[in-house]
């Protein structure tokens, strides 16, 4: 099956093309096709995963050669553009994650999007997204990953702006695309550096070049940070995180699929994929870790005070992504310094479990929104009774993300905490973030599903969602618990499958486990105290730490900051340059034209009075002469003939005369001409008389 892995994305593309061009009008058929294709992709992904696992088991710890095929798009002596497929453990894991969430979301959307104006189009876009995402995951070189990187950006843009008639939605789509592009600038610079120095984009060849010392150290740092810039954009890391919360304007299944589980982890995937480069430059790896930590902390603080259910989840996503990035960065930093760290395994493992529970959280939140038609948690409450399946799965996912023991999140988070253990600052903040995560997630749970309904009308209308929606919820709920069991410490599992360099053998570290889980449980307890038992007044705390509260509520004023610092100046610059263009450059052109005209004007004056004066003078002369000579123009051919004969005679006579006297003769000739003119005039008058007589 692995050899046919390219079919996984191509099937999705087929689905997209079919729907857009042929099946758009038949909603049932198009959604059915899309769902079928995604389920097929899921089956194939599982198959590929199993085959890959078998390969690893069969190798008994020896190095496993990944499956790779390459196809050239262009041929140059150096640096080719190529596309290809690479299937190794990381790819297989990502395939499973993407296809699982993809299939679930597609099925879920059957219910969620029912009755929408653009039902078929939605499924087409989802198929296109899955195509791009699978392509991204399967890529075997940096060029190809960039292609699909941009394509997922496009689908993200299309899907965020799916309700394009809403201004906020289209704004959010644009913001997402452009913010991502900013990150991509760095990505491109990184790619160009890699291409220039390594002469290839192929992962393996690039990594060989890195370990072979082809790159000067400072170039490697820049290249690594450049690549990471791409990840910053796509994974919504500080300082480019601003697009992700706004991206919640898209339909909720989209938020679940793209902006929680799959696309946003592409950045994490990129860092994991290019880990050799980060390992090669400790500085860059440290930047990665630091950015991850800052993002994670900042997002967690913002999530504490948000009231929009999806926004809380979005900031939670940002925070968790920061977690993964941090783990990977720490791994790179440690490995560069010769320490074998669980960071790589922890980051990728958390990527997987996070996909399950965050996808679930969003889908469940979508189900809630579907029921109560609001995003504001202050208008919810006590919904658990009304929608038990949604509620319980949401609670399971929350437990998982908070790191409640034996859930998936517990195992992965545990490893991240372990990875940060060597670095006190990181360790402290990691725990703090874990605490805050648990707190805001359960704040959300308690306010949504427990307590008394705050808006009776909405509560009354609430109902459980249809099976197409709850089915995926339950499926993901199961995964959110057992998905982490593949990485139980001390047992052979995930860490021997997805690794970088040497496999990391996990061991049970009870102290670590205790600290991590108690922090999580502590957060839940505090949330319970504040929002369910009301033992501590949230308002009072907000009053006490008002500046901090405002900072959190206003998302650290990033949007306003960017607006002032970047957007306005650029727009102003654009307008200024336009004016510059119209006034200065064009002014120059027009000025030249004006000057030419002015010069022409001057010349015309000169012409009129000086040259024309002379010309007119001679003209006057000529015209007066002509007045006389015009009588030669009798209009009668015979007269002309006669004249010709006379002239021949005259000229012949001249020819025979001595040379000196020609002037005299010419004058005579002119006089004769005038004379003839007068004769002619007389003739004309005569004729005129005759004619008038005739008419009379």
């Amino acid at each position: 099956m692995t050899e046919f892995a390219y079919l996984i994305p191509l099937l999705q593309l087929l689905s997209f093309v079919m729907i857009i061009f042929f099946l758009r009008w038949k909603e049932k058929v198009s959604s059915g096709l899309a769902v079928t294709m995604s389920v097929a992709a899921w089956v194939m992904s599982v198959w590929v995963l199993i085959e890959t696992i078998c390969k690893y088991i069969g190798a008994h710890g020896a190095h496993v050669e990944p499956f790779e095929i390459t196809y050239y798009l262009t041929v140059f002596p150096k640096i080719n553009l190529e596309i290809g497929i690479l299937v190794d453990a990381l790819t297989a894991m990502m395939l499973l994650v993407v296809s699982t969430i993809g299939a679930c979301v597609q099925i879920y959307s059957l219910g969620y999007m029912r009755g929408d104006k653009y039902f078929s189009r939605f499924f087409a876009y989802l198929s296109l997204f899955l195509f791009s995402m699978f392509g991204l995951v399967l890529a075997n070189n940096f060029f190809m990953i960039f292609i699909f990187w941009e394509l997922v950006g496009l689908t993200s843009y299309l899907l965020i702006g799916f309700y394009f008639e809403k201004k906020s939605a289209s704004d959010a789509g644009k913001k997402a695309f452009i913010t991502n592009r900013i990150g991509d600038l760095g990505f491109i610079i990184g790619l160009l550096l890699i291409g220039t120095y390594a002469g290839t984009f192929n992962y393996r060849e690039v990594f060989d070049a890195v370990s072979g010392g082809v790159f000067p150290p400072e170039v490697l740092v820049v290249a690594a940070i450049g690549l990471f810039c791409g990840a910053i954009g796509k994974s919504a890391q500080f300082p480019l995180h601003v697009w992700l919360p706004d991206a919640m304007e898209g339909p909720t299944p989209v938020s679940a699929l793209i902006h929680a589980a799959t696309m946003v982890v592409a950045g994490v995937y990129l860092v994991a994929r290019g880990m050799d480069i980060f390992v090669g430059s400790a500085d860059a790896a440290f930047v990665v870790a630091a950015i991850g930590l800052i993002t994670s902390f900042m997002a967690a603080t913002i999530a504490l005070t948000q009231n929009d259910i999806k926004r809380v989840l979005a900031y939670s996503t940002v925070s968790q992504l920061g977690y993964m990035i941090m783990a990977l960065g720490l791994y790179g930093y440690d490995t560069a310094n010769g320490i074998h760290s669980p960071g790589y395994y922890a980051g990728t493992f958390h990527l997987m479990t996070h996909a399950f529970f965050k996808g679930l959280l969003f889908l469940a939140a979508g189900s809630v929104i579907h029921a109560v038609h609001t995003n504001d948690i202050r208008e919810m409450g006590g919904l658990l009774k009304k929608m038990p399946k949604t509620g319980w799965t949401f609670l399971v996912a929350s437990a998982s993300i908070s790191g409640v023991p034996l859930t998936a999140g517990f195992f992965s988070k545990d490893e991240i905490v372990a990875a940060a253990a060597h670095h006190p600052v990181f360790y402290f903040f990691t725990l703090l973030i874990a605490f805050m995560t648990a707190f805001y997630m359960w704040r959300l749970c308690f306010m949504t599903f427990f307590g008394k309904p705050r808006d009776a009308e909405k509560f009354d209308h609430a109902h459980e969602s249809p099976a197409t929606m709850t089915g995926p919820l339950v499926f993901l709920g199961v995964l959110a618990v057992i998905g982490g069991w593949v990485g139980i410490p001390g047992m052979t599992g995930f860490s021997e499958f997805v690794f970088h360099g040497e496999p990391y053998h996990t061991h049970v570290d009870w102290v670590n486990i205790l600290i991590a889980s108690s922090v999580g449980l502590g957060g839940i307890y505090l949330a319970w105290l504040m929002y369910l038992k009301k033992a501590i007044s949230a308002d009072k705390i907000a009053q006490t730490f008002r500046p901090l509260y405002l900072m959190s509520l206003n998302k650290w004023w990033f949007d306003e900051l960017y607006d002032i610092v970047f957007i306005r100046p650029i727009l102003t610059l654009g307008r200024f340059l336009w004016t510059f263009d119209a006034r200065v450059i064009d002014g120059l052109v027009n000025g030249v034209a004006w000057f030419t005209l002015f010069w022409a004007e001057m010349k015309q004056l000169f012409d009129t009075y000086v040259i024309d004066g002379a010309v007119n003078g001679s003209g006057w002369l000529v015209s007066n002469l002509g007045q006389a000579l015009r009588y030669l123009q009798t209009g009668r051919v015979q007269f002309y003939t006669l004249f010709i004969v006379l002239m021949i005679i005259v000229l012949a006579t001249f020819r025979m005369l001595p040379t000196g006297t020609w002037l005299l003769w010419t004058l005579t000739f002119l006089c004769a001409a005038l004379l003839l003119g007068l004769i002619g005039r007389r003739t004309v008058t005569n004729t005129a008389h005759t004619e008038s007589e005739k008419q009379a």
Partner: protein
Amino acid sequence: MTDPSEVGIVFWVLSTVILVSAVMVVSLRNIFHCAIFLILTLTGVAGIFVTLNAEFLAAAQVLIYVGAVATLMVFGIMLTSDIASRRIEMTNQKAGVAVLACMVFALGVLFLIKITTKAGAGVWQTATEPLPADNVLTIGKQLMTEFVLPFEVVSVLLLAAMIGAIVLARREAS
């Protein structure tokens, strides 16, 4: 090859006929008579051609000029001027000046001819070879080989003239 100085009696007769009838052509009042004299002139010219070893040309002259052109003239006359009735002044007021000018011109031309053909003037090299005997054959061959392009052009011109004449003379369908 005729000696330049030796001009036969035929020439004198012919030239007299030509000049007299030419003067008639330009001076007679009745345009119809003019046409008759024109035919006479043209026939005379044909005779001159014969004396100049241009038999084919003579034939063409008779056929085209005498046969076609002159007849055409006669037709034109009959179509336009009501000859029988009209008796108008055949020359205009310029006649006096014209006579003078033409006299001078003729004298000039004759003078030129005189000085250039004078023996030893050396303006023209007198030919030593006689004209080819088989004139007509040679003309035919040369027309179709060396002069084929002018020949074709002339034929197109003729065609165009014919069409033009038809178009011009066509009565407006009013």
